[in-house]
């Protein structure tokens, strides 16, 4: 990849000094032009992956990470796109394969993709009220009504949080605890987000 050509063409790109592949932070305004430049002039013809991320120490809180691949010289490049006001331009006009990835990022994080042809939820059902991969969403889930209202009316059932009591496979790692690793605190509320 011609890094000099890329950075001289787009001075707003910030080199993040990626260890495994060239990594740049691209502001949303430049994203489409950068991806188009990479695709048409640098040969990055395959969008390997696009995903949402909630950053620990960055503002804005959410971002999108795009991995592009060239099938000619077999190189990757990574773009970090901050989601200002939870919005990112959609690259699905350049790489149609981004369509579903963007729907997933919207579903999981609530990131909106400007210019996306069909921004619906993809893994959760339409009408699901939360964005489950956000860090303030509890692991067990939150009770919500059944997707099928007619079934809920007859059975009186709802989608319940998963039973987590004593879940032995949930651990914080990294920190030494006094007892055995135990289930996370599931007493999540709007007022007191999970630490």
């Amino acid at each position: 990849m011609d890094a000099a050509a890329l950075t001289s063409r787009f001075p707003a790109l910030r080199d993040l000094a990626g260890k495994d592949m060239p990594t740049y932070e691209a502001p949303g305004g430049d994203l489409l032009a950068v991806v188009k430049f990479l695709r048409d002039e640098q040969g990055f013809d395959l969008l390997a992956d696009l995903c949402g991320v909630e950053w620990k120490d960055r503002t804005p809180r959410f971002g999108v990470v795009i991995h592009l691949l060239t099938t000619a010289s077999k190189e990757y490049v990574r773009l970090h796109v901050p989601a200002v006001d939870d919005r990112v331009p959609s690259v699905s006009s350049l790489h149609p394969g981004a369509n579903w990835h963007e729907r997933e990022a919207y579903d999981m994080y609530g990131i909106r993709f400007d210019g996306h042809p069909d921004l619906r939820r993809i893994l959760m059902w339409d009408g699901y009220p939360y964005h489950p991969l956000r860090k303030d969403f509890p692991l067990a889930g939150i009770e919500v009504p059944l997707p099928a209202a007619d079934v809920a009316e007859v059975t009186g059932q709802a989608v319940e949080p998963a039973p987590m009591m004593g879940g032995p496979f949930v651990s914080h790692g990294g920190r030494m605890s006094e007892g055995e690793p135990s289930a996370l605190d599931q007493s999540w509320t709007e007022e007191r987000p999970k630490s």
Partner: protein
Amino acid sequence: MKITKEISIGDVAARSEELRGENMTLNMGPSHPATHGVLRLSLELDGDKVIKCDPVIGYLHRGDEKIAENMTYNQFVPYTDRLDYLAPLANNVAYAIAVERLAGVKVPERCEAIRVVCCEMARISSHLLGLGVYAMDTGAWTVFMYTFNEREKLYTLFEELTGARFTTSYTRVGGVTRDLPEGWLAKVDVFCDGVLRTVDEVDRLLTRNGIFLERTEGVAPISKELALAYGLTGANLRASGVPFDLRKDKPYSGYERYDFDVAVGTKGDCFDRYLVRMEELRQSVRILRQAVRGMPGGAWYAEDAKKVFLPPKAKVLTRMEELIQNFMLVTEGPQVPPGEVYFEAENPKGSLGFYVVSHGGGVPWRLRIRGPSFVALSILPAVVPGNYLTDIASVLGSLDFVMGECDR
């Protein structure tokens, strides 16, 4: 008296708009044998012809990425079994390599070779099932029996190696759970002969079978440009004429040491995707033979990675240092420095990618799984319309997807 009425083609053509019936909406799935799992296709049909296809996924969504953020790296290995559950060993290896790249751990040659054996056996197992059900979807029941016979032998080998037939969870960050059992490699060598015979048999049953050709040749061709635009990977991409194979082009786990060819199609239709998988089976056997016969000795896990891989049990029980190391690793998880990594492995279904963001410690901050089946299904709205309803079984079978990995 016989009443006849002459109808000219021209009259009918002129009335074609008037004669056109209503389009029908048909839900195919989520429980339908041809959708290979819980996939629902919301179809709009004009007679027998598909006008619009909207795949509805998410029925098997378990929140694997959320779960990964709440446990240590090694605890997540069993969850990777359930991504592409037809090739759990390959998922284990891909996940372990991704985390090792982030942790900066290099595994010894023997470990790499063991992993190559695992990956190729997983590929054979996955392709055998893929071909079996593909043939069944297109009306040839027998092939499934032939391929399942071989898969059964594979499962026995998996069981001997990992202790489990399906959910193998064989790798750990920095190595594998145990060394190869004695005499196991010889059994793999014997298996290689058997599976080649079966592949030849399947070849004779299908490749020139008129019914199979009718149902696959020229059906749903995916052009090179379309395949790249949608980010198809693996055999599906190669069938469209793009010679891209991560084992050759971005070698990992020592794949550069093996001699094999990459099968590439020309037209990208359902039949090409079948042919590419058949050839990949043979090439996998070739790699497997080389790996089995040239299996290097030495350590089978990264011995110097003391903050990542558990010490041997015998030492844990007899020595203080290893006991502490064992305890710390189990409670805190393998220690991975802050950073990010993206690693894709050439899995049977395509490139399985892991994007890991770490802030240090034993738990990932973000673990993204890029499932090749998710991508393969996203191309359906572009490929299926224009085909007949009956062709959908061929198209789905030829794309060889698995819902566990698509919905994650």
